[in-house]
């Protein structure tokens, strides 16, 4: 992610439309730019298109129309090795978690670091550290299929941030959590943001953006509306 300093643009979406076959318009003419280092809240009720927008940003879906640049690269043009390298720098906590249910918590979190060939000792330390922050230390060697949904959600988040990505996309990170754990999750995300990562949070849980000073935008029927401008740059 070179050439994107403090005030560079991490995400640039211009007139992006996504239509699922046969005729479901999930996003229409969405334009959005997110600055490097920003924390950004994307809200909207269920079915508004939040997940679709995040999937477009990590190249899991392709837009029907429009341009999407991440870190200055047209993410749907990048191929092969370059796409892999770009994805290593994007941490995603999926709404459906995408955990390997027959592997332990530690193995699941480690995957994102393994693919960028981090040293085993470093991986071990980082995994332990993250699980501590998310109150999952006692689940270190538990197979993720045996966890509650709230626990699985935090494992997915830990995996998303483990490799210290420069862009973190989280989809409904607190859907299954109580207030206390929600607080821990937000602390971790804020910590990542403070150390320079751009963080995009899609949520319909107003408890986590109610008191924030960051920018909030809302998706309504596939269209993007500004709710509140960020207070701090």
């Amino acid at each position: 992610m070179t050439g994107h300093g403090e005030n560079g643009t991490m995400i640039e979406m211009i007139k992006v439309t996504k239509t699922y076959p046969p005729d479901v318009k999930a996003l229409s003419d969405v334009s959005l730019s997110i600055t490097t280092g920003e924390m950004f809240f994307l809200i909207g009720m269920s079915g508004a298109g939040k997940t679709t927008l995040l999937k477009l940003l990590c190249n899991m879906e392709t837009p029907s129309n429009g341009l999407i640049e991440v870190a200055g690269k047209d993410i749907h043009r990048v191929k092969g090795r370059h796409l892999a390298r770009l994805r290593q720098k994007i941490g995603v906590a999926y709404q459906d978690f995408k955990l390997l249910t027959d592997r332990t918590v530690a193995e699941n979190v480690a995957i994102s670091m393994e693919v960028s060939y981090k040293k085993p000792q470093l991986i071990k330390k980082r995994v332990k550290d993250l699980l501590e922050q998310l109150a999952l230390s006692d689940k270190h060697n538990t197979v993720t299929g045996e966890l509650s949904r709230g626990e699985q959600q935090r494992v997915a988040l830990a995996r998303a941030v483990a490799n210290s990505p420069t862009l973190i996309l989280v989809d409904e990170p607190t859907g299954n959590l109580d207030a206390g754990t929600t607080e821990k999750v937000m602390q971790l995300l804020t910590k990542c943001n403070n150390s320079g990562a751009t963080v995009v949070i899609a949520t319909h849980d107003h408890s986590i953006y109610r008191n924030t000073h960051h920018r909030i935008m809302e998706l309504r029927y596939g269209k993007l509306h500004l709710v509140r401008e960020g207070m701090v740059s």
Partner: protein
Amino acid sequence: MSFWFAVLRQAGRNLRQTWPSQFMTLLTVSLSVLIFAFFFLVYNNMLNVGDKLGDDLRLIVYLEEEPGPEMQAQLKRKILAFDEVDEIRFISKTDAYQRFSEQLGENRDVLDDMPQDFLPASVEVVPLKNLSSLSQVKNFSDYLSKLPGTIKVQYGQDWIERFYYFTRLLSIIVLLSGGLLILTSVFMVSYTIRLTILGRQAELELLKLVGATNNYIRTPFLLEGLLQGLIGSTAGILSLYGLFHWVELKFAGPGILSIFEFTFFHPQTVVTIIAISIVLCAVGSYSSMQKFLRI
């Protein structure tokens, strides 16, 4: 270094998860290498035997009368028109008489009353020492017997010809079992790897999402294919060697096998067979992998 660490870790996980089918593949590969190598070995030895038989092989064309120099040249041209040969030798009536009397040795006085030209003149044709020219020895003999002025053609024994038919049949079997080897190793390996891929689709998809390069995903499977080729073919060759050794011990001493000296493959041939198996297995795993990575 950490790349190879990651590759070995992944390959280990694959093995732990799918070792029964991996083992079946290994068995299939070694069995097909064994079958192919067995026929190839027999064929090779038959060729050696054929070489030895071929050393003595010659066609003798008996002529009605002594050929003059012009006739000799004509005959030579006619013979060469059929096939290239190693040697053409003209034996005149007196030469034949001479030879015969030498063969009789002490008993040569029985010839005293015979005229020096009672034996017919002949042409000795020594065919080239390769399988294709040797295998048509019958055709050659038919051709020669139709040349003007020939009485009859003699060559070795009938079984020489049968032997060459057998070798030809064997060469077909070698080709077939070679084809079998190619099919089984490529398809079995690609099939097991496809099984592994299907069993771990979720993981492989996730690996792509978290930014694993194609090499990170592919190399463990490729390594698996290579190992299957290496171990499978080595096991196949080793068991053939064991079999060979057993037969050698069992049938040592005077017997049918001691007429022909049976030999095992050259080390080079062994290395070549193993190398080809490795390549085939790698191709199998690579093709499966490519199909998956393109999706």
